[in-house]
């Protein structure tokens, strides 16, 4: 009986699944990163407004700052991910 030739991990079917798994994780992270950063920004803004009695000034600022930070984070994550895993 001929044994299958080991061509290293790159030829293994699971190696291809590894890349698919990485993309799955990336897409999942993209979604939740924007949500979490926006929520953190809103929570911080709300807390600041409560302390200063300026509702909703810092809440709006926190919302945009959180969403902006999330967008920058997603951009950098995708860039680094593609540079590393493509």
């Amino acid at each position: 009986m001929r044994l299958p030739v080991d061509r290293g991990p790159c030829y293994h079917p699971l190696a291809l699944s590894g890349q698919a798994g990485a993309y799955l994780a990336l897409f999942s992270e993209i979604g939740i990163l924007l949500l979490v950063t926006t929520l953190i920004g809103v929570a911080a803004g709300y807390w600041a407004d409560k302390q200063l009695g300026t509702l909703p000034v810092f809440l709006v600022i926190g919302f945009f700052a959180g969403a902006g930070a999330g967008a920058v984070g997603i951009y950098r994550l995708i860039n680094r991910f593609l540079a590393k895993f493509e």
Partner: protein
Amino acid sequence: MSSDRAAAAAETEESTRAPESEAAGRRRVLRNLGLLIVAVLVLDALALLLVPPFPRGGQPGDECTFPVCFINGTLEFPPPHVVVDLDPSHPMPEGAAVITFHPSITSTIVTMWLIMAILIVVAFLATRVMRLVPRSLQNVLEFAYESLENFGVGLGGDAARPYIPLFAAFFILILFCNWSGLIPPIGKLDELRAPTSDLNITIGLALVSFTFFEFQGFRRHGIGGYLGKFFPVYEFRNGIGAGAIAMFVGLIELMLEFVKPVTLSMRLFGNIYGGEVALAAVTALFLAILPVAMYGLEVILNFVQALIFSVLTLIFTLLAIESHEHEEDEAGTEGATAMRAATAGQTPSPAH
């Protein structure tokens, strides 16, 4: 001659009989499946009549209106049940928030210890007598580990190889923690509950992952080198404006670094707890068929969530150990190449 004819007739008869017996076998399987479905439905209906649902905290036989009371009776609330209170002088308030700061051993911790004990015993039994040509349990474990190794190396190349043990350990532990919630007594008894359906546990797991990948980053680049990623003071050599922008981006990067454990824990908790709530609601509202389909879906989703957590731990570790300056050098070289090509009126050729 006559014997030939008889043989040919027998062959023809056999060939016509084969599809008939195949069809009969298929019919038998379908009939058995149908009978099984009817039996499950009858059992479910009998259970509903003989042991009807009762309100949460009430007694069997108390009136229970459909559907609110039915759903409430099967729902689990985010805070886990306290099994051993380590600070009885300050009892945990009822209906506490999702995250609780109260020293206690909860149902999720007990279940996690049980799962850990089972995994450790199985791993010990499988590797007690190691054989070159593996048999039974050793074979199963080697297959699982090699599959995960191939998966991880396929994802991150040889750089990922040293971190495969942690990747595999996270995956196997979280997978069984997720799946444990689908075994009926777990989640129904006060002392047992799926560990990953509790935010306190997923935060713990995420903090282990966070500590690991930050430690690997510091170990690879040193304290100054790794912190240089978040505080790039060397950029001030290119001017105050460039330095200020780099510091701003570095601060955002630092903030996003601390968001990583939050996203890891929230995702795992949200998916597993959400799945359990959906399963409980569907079980309360429908007879057996739809909950069974939902169970199948949950088995797959729980597997995917364990995979996502462990893959992200591996990816974050690989991103933490990659050289930041090298990355910038590469970007600089590519930029310079593009500039040279633009001045020469050519399109730059791709590096790879």
